[in-house]
């Protein structure tokens, strides 16, 4: 595969599809969109298949001197590979979710989605600081249009809030990037990841990047755009927002904040922990009292993302790997939950929890899938949610047992609000005749749910498939941040050396 511009192709395919969709009618546009996203999925699978696990850190690199001041530079490591895989996996499902529900201006809708796909892959594949920024910011325009044109009743407020919040967060990052490029003399991300910025400058740079990623993530208390955006966006918009866009914040921390400003990251770790602890408890409690299904899942996303941030700022392998796994798992699970909500929303056109009830009777298969994803969201062992949360909490336990303690309540509260949601929607008596008359999943919905369910279980049962590609990159990152890592309160002592074979076995179990 060397020399074949697969990343360029993956960016180009949806872009061409987007242009083709613009002028097409509804039927044609959705076919074009489906084919395009499936082609990108195949390309993504090829990308993964040809990724040399444990090989060079940066693979599939492509460079072109097209611009003044920055480069068209692409390339991926294991972390980017997994997030690109997540993106291309979710996109056909998003198109499927919009298949029947989008009636007006379908051509433009699918064009916006395909454009989003290009930009999201671009964010993860960019190896140039400014190329990354352009891709990162450009996503605002299609998402603004998706929320504003095809969203719910309060869509205009939500679209403004989404746009201005994220824009304000990002612009300061641009100034920090200028400073970094000026100091380091390069826009190349791999080089900058090795560059040692003076610690006092790192503080400011970290804060500027933090402003952007914290909003994108989103962290408490700058999360308020998310529930609005989620609730108003169409189903597929919510899936992509929860599934991929939120991951850009986490990716930003992994790619920029931690390796480029390790000292400042350590300095601000208590701040991140504090915000994350607050987020886990507060947003979980808020989720508990929601009447709107999408809002509930949106708040649960904020809580899950808080577990990602504590894992990232645990400065050890478990925490970092755990965070990555939660991001992947949350991408699937939150996406699937929004999809589930979309399935019943398409039938009854309300997200009000009270309007449903007893769906297990008339929609047994829906109930089955919704249960699977509910359990995955709670973090039941055997599902994808468990592995990441466990690793992440274990990682932060070495740093601060109090943080681990408070954040673990998130698991309990998570079980509370998710099971409560499940009970009210799926169990109980069928108090609404119209809800009781809803038909079960059709073939299209099966086709969307089954892959999501399978991958969720796969990640839960054999996470090694997802850990292997990023292991080396996480190890490099850990080595980079280890120098500055704050001293933990765990007082972990190394035991006496064991025979090699036994040690290997123990190591294998930990993952």
């Amino acid at each position: 595969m060397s020399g074949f511009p697969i990343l360029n192709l993956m960016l180009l395919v949806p872009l061409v599809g987007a242009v083709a969709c613009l002028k097409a009618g509804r039927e044609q546009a959705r076919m074009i969109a489906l084919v395009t996203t499936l082609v990108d999925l195949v390309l993504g699978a090829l990308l993964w298949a040809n990724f040399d696990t444990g090989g060079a850190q940066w693979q599939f690199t492509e460079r072109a001197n097209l611009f003044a001041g920055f480069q068209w530079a692409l390339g991926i490591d294991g972390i980017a590979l997994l997030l690109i895989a997540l993106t291309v996996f979710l996109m056909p499902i998003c198109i499927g979710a919009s298949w029947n529900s989008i009636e007006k201006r379908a051509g433009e809708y699918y064009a916006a989605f395909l454009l989003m796909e290009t930009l999201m892959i671009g964010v993860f594949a960019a190896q140039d600081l400014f190329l990354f920024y352009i891709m990162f910011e450009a996503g605002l325009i299609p998402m603004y249009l998706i929320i504003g044109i095809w969203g719910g009743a309060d869509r205009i407020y939500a679209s403004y809030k989404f746009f201005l919040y994220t824009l304000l967060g990002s612009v300061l990052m641009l100034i920090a990037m200028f400073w970094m490029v000026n100091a380091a003399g390069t826009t190349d991300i791999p080089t900058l990841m090795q560059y040692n910025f003076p610690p006092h400058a790192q503080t400011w740079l970290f804060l500027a990047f933090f402003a952007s990623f914290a909003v994108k993530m989103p962290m408490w208390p700058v999360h308020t755009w998310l529930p609005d955006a989620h609730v108003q966006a169409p189903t597929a918009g919510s899936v992509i927002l929860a599934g991929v866009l939120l991951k850009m914040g986490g990716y930003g921390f992994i790619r920029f904040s931690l390796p480029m400003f390790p000292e400042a990251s350590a300095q601000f770790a208590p701040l991140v922990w504090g915000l994350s602890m607050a987020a886990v408890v507060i947003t979980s409690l808020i989720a508990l009292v929601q009447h709107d299904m999408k809002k509930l899942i949106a708040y649960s996303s904020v809580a899950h993302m808080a577990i990602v941030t504590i894992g990232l700022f645990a400065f050890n392998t478990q925490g970092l790997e755990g965070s990555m796994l939660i991001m992947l798992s949350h991408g699937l699970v939150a996406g699937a939950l929004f999809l589930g909500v979309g399935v019943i929303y398409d039938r009854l056109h309300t997200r009000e929890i009270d309007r449903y009830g007893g769906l297990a009777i008339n929609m047994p298969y829906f109930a089955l899938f919704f249960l699977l994803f509910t359990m995955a969201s709670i973090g039941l062992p055997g599902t994808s949610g468990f592995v990441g949360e466990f690793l992440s909490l274990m990682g932060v336990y070495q740093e601060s047992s109090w943080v681990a303690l408070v954040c673990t309540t998130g698991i309990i509260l998570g079980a509370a609000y998710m099971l409560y949601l499940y009970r009210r929607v799926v169990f109980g008596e069928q108090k609404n005749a119209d809800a009781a008359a809803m038909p079960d999943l059709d073939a299209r919905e099966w086709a969307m749910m089954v892959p999501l369910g399978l991958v969720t279980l796969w990640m839960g049962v054999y996470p090694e498939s997802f850990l292997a590609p990023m292991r080396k990159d996480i190890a490099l990152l850990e080595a980079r941040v280890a120098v500055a890592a704050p001293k933990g309160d765990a007082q972990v002592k190394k035991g006496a050396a064991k025979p090699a074979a036994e040690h290997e076995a123990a190591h294998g179990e930990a993952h």
Partner: protein
Amino acid sequence: MELVRSLQLVAGEEVLSISGLILLLWAAWAGDKAARAISIASVAVLTVAALIAAPALYGAAMGADTVAFGGQYRADAFSAFGKLLIYASAAVTLIVAPAFFDRFKAMRAEFPLLVLFAALGMGMMVSATDLLTLYIGLELNSLASYVLAAILRSDERSAESGLKYFVLGSLASGILLYGVSLTYGFTGTTSFEGIRHALSAGTLSTGAVFGMVFVLAGMAFKISAAPFHMWTPDVYEGAPTPVTTFFATASKVSALGLLMRISLMAFGAAPAAWQQIVIFAAILSIVIGALGAIGQDNIKRLMAYSSINNVGFILIGLACANQPGAAAMLVYIAIYVAMSVAGFVAVLMLRDENGDPVESIADLSGLSKTRPGLAAALAAVMFSLAGIPPLFGFWGKFVVFQAAVQANLVALAAIGIAASVIGAFYYLKVVKVMYFDEAVDKVRGKSDLAHGVLLVIASVFISPLGYLLTNWLHTLAGNAAAALFHV
């Protein structure tokens, strides 16, 4: 020989003035019937003048070879950069004008001539290296512009805008002239070289500082930087749209070029004396431009505030007071001209059933459903003006902020970019009206083919494809900035 050499250097201006005079005779002879033919001839003249100017830019002409008339005038790469933009903008104005004026049966033969003479004055402004040449160029441009603003005699708003522009413009010229006289008095020379020499020697006298402040205040009026921006919304709204296009593009380029030449060349030896003023004007323009636009319901007024806002960003490049800053300004100006052209041509294409212009933002509701292409172009202009990547408008902001950070003006860059988010709010409003609101289907008029072609060209330039031009644009802007700093 000196005279011959000088006359060679100003060949472009000679072509413009002689052709202008001939066309004037033609206009007097043939009357308004010949208006279109004169327009076409004027575009041809502007093209020739641009072709004459271009080699200086590509060849990075600078230094003693470019000095004409004993230091009064310079035909270097910097002035060529400005002239190319000015002549191109003037040509665009002439191309879009007939379709607009025909509606009012007001396509007059004087119109192309006034544009031609204004362009001549503007070309002189960016080439001037002496306070007197500067003033002659400025007034030649201003007098033509006052008439242009008021050219729709029967329209009250046009007359009002012409009068406002004249009164306030004269006041600003007066302030500028006062500054010029103080500068002359305290430095003993009107040549930029001489002023630079006088200012670099020894301490700065209070009188010279006052002179600089007055000159900059007068210039701030011409570029419509806050706090001297008050005329802009009224004039932009009242003037006929092709004329507004001219003001937003060519006038801006020339005034900014002049400001750069005077502050970086004449006052370049004492940047500390004026940097603070520029920083103050920059931040104030960004904020006032952004806040003032929020309540506007007329698209032309909105564009006026947007131009105040953009001038603020351009001034950030000037605040750097160095060569990269100047190059960044030039890149921004070039992109800004393209954005303005696209924006105003799109506005010109907004016509109702009777062919009357639609200017109210509310009437654009649901434009994306009725006229998707036009709405997409206007949305691209709005996002581009807001500086949202991947549109090319982002690149303008990118280069000036990068220059500011490199010049250690991190705080200014941070404040400026944070304030740009306020501006994004009103640009978004236009997009919201066009894309999210129910269609009112007001815009039903047919568009002129020339408008369509210009809009497509300008839109492609501000689209992400524009990034492919960055290398070329940076080379040219670099040449121009180098010429400016070549003492």
